[in-house]
């Protein structure tokens, strides 16, 4: 794939001509379904319109849909500059948007199933900013999408190409497009990254995979979940009710109401099944690795998504273990990235859908190669399963039991040189990791009962996302000390943080 040097366009360019068809294919299927239902029901219901009129309406609707999509495609243009990616689209409402590369937070290559079948992809460029500040360019041929991603990342990293066309050289220095289905060397997994954090060389051409999630474990983790248990119970109850109705179908007086109940149950079964299916579809074939341009995540069964999060863009982490997973010692890791606020937040915010304790350690290492702690593995283990003041944690005092009868002994915080760890949860164990330089702001709050007991709660404000870290019910003096120290640590962290253009310091 590297042999065909796809170059991200510097002048206004349309997306691939297949775009309108990919856009309308769902509409077409929906119309065909409606048409089919309409036609098959005609003999019973007597039909309201003659067959050929229905057919003409269906064809007309499809033609209009395709025509509209084609018109939209004609005005859907994008180009790349040294400082930004420009995108304009819209027939009725024109929109001209530029994604500034110095605010780049992530680049995703998304392949919905239909696009993937034909080898097309959607490139989504997430920048920091308000809502709706992201640029989504769809659809491009896969190699064009890869080229665009690589050049965007290279430019954002601070490389400046003398010859705008020579993207091959730029891309080659930073990131070689990873062909779909490529299997990077398995030796990458051998080294234990937490113990000895190796420096990633600047010219690391390709991705090093750190961990993968085996299919069996993923399916197991989905089956061992509250949703799956709820599904089993609801399905079993439905089965029994249906059986009972079958037995006394003729004698039952209130068949109608029972039938309504069954319908509701079936809706439940379907919605729970959809949740489980979404987890499988999103997280299948999950792999996480590291390249010079950041963290690479790749996942998906039918719809696939390959994410690249450049260094220093992860705002916070949460590591969780549900009660059901405790026996397997499975953990889930999610992250906050500033650009990732959208409908599929859960999907894009997953760093490790399910993994062993070592995988979870690797996931934390991926974000924070240096935890700033002499014994990172031990500290994280304490955060995972420890309690009270073990291993240097500042724990919530015993008198806080009244707020948290089921988890007060788990609540605690520990600040390392680089990050703040907040631990909580007994049945659902979890802990947050927030790099100091990523702290947006802090708050300390206290209610009347807390004041009586000399307690206070610390909030650490991260960007919009799945993680909202709170260290609840600390002793007041600990809380005040923490907020003062944390403000200082955040200041120091910002002073030494990775520059926005993360390669500029090296190459310049």
């Amino acid at each position, binding site marked *: 794939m590297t042999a065909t040097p796809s170059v991200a366009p510097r002048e206004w360019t349309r997306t691939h001509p297949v775009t309108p068809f990919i856009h309308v294919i769902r509409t077409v299927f929906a119309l065909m379904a409606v048409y089919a239902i309409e036609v098959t029901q005609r003999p019973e219901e007597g039909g309201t319109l003659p067959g050929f009129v229905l057919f003409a309406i269906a064809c007309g609707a499809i033609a209009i849909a395709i025509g509209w999509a084609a018109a939209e495609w004609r005005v859907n243009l994008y180009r790349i500059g040294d400082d930004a990616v420009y995108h304009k689209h819209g027939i009725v409402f024109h929109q001209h948007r530029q994604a500034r590369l110095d*605010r780049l*937070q992530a680049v995703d290559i998304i392949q919905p199933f239909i696009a993937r079948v034909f080898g097309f992809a959607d490139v989504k460029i997430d920048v*920091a900013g308000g809502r709706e500040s992201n640029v989504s360019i769809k659809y491009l041929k896969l190699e064009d999408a890869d080229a665009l991603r690589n050049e965007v990342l290279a430019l954002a990293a601070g490389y400046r190409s003398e010859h705008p066309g020579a993207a091959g050289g730029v891309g080659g220095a930073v990131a070689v497009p990873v062909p779909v289905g490529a299997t990077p060397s398995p030796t990458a997994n051998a080294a234990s990254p937490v113990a000895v954090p190796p420096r990633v060389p600047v010219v690391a051409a390709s991705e090093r995979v750190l961990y993968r999630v085996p299919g069996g474990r993923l399916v197991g983790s989905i089956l061992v979940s509250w949703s799956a248990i709820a599904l089993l119970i609801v399905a079993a109850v439905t089965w029994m009710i249906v059986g009972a109705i079958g037995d006394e179908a003729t004698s039952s007086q209130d068949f109608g109401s029972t039938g309504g109940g069954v319908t509701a149950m079936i809706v439940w079964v379907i919605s729970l099944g959809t949740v489980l299916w979404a987890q499988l579809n999103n997280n299948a074939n999950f792999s996480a690795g590291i390249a010079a341009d950041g963290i690479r995540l790749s996942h998906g069964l039918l719809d696939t998504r390959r994410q690249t999060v450049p260094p*220093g*863009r992860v*705002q916070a982490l949460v590591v969780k273990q549900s009660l059901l997973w405790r026996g397997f010692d499975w953990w889930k890791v999610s992250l906050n990235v*500033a650009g990732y606020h959208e409908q599929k937040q859960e999907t894009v915010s997953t760093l490790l859908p399910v993994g062993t304790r070592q995988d979870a350690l690797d996931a934390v290492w991926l974000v924070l190669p240096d935890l700033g702690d002499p014994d990172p593995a031990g500290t994280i283990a304490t955060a995972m399963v420890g309690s009270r003041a073990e291993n240097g944690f500042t724990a919530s005092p015993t008198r806080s039991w009244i707020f948290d009868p089921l988890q007060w002994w788990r609540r605690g915080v520990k600040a390392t040189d680089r990050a703040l760890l907040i631990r909580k949860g007994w049945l659902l164990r979890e802990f947050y990791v927030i790099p100091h*330089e*990523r*702290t*947006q*702001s*802090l*708050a*300390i*709050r*206290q*209610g*009347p009962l807390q*004041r009586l007991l000399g307690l206070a709660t610390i*909030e650490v*404000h*991260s*960007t*919009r996302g799945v993680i*909202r870290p709170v260290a609840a019910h600390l002793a007041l003096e600990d809380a005040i000390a923490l*907020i003062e120290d944390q*403000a200082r640590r*955040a*200041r120091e962290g*910002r*002073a030494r*943080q990775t*520059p*926005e253009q993360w390669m500029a310091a090296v190459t310049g």
Partner: protein
Amino acid sequence: MLAAGIVLGLNGGAWWALPAGVLVLALWISWIIVRQVSAHAWVEREDDLMVRRGRIFRRVTVVPYGRMQFVDVASGPLARAFGIARVQLHTASPGSDAHIAGVPAEEAARLRDRLTTRGEARLAGL
């Protein structure tokens, strides 16, 4: 209190109970507002801004200057008539709800400019 007033009023006897109830309620709310306002304060420190709010549920927010994305100064017609404004600080986090209400209008403009200048000097990524 108000309910008791209404009940008394409806029972026919004391017609004054309703207005009295309203008056007591108004006084009580005013007292709470005065207490809240007197608890509301801010301090500009070397590297961050601290905003204090609330008396029963207390809250202190610390926003580093380098984390401010933008600063809003807003004032409605009533606030303008009294020459006060509300200064709202925005970071990249929806959680950092740091606003200062009832700042004298000129002071608000000066505060905004100071915050913006300090923010620019210290701004560092996200």
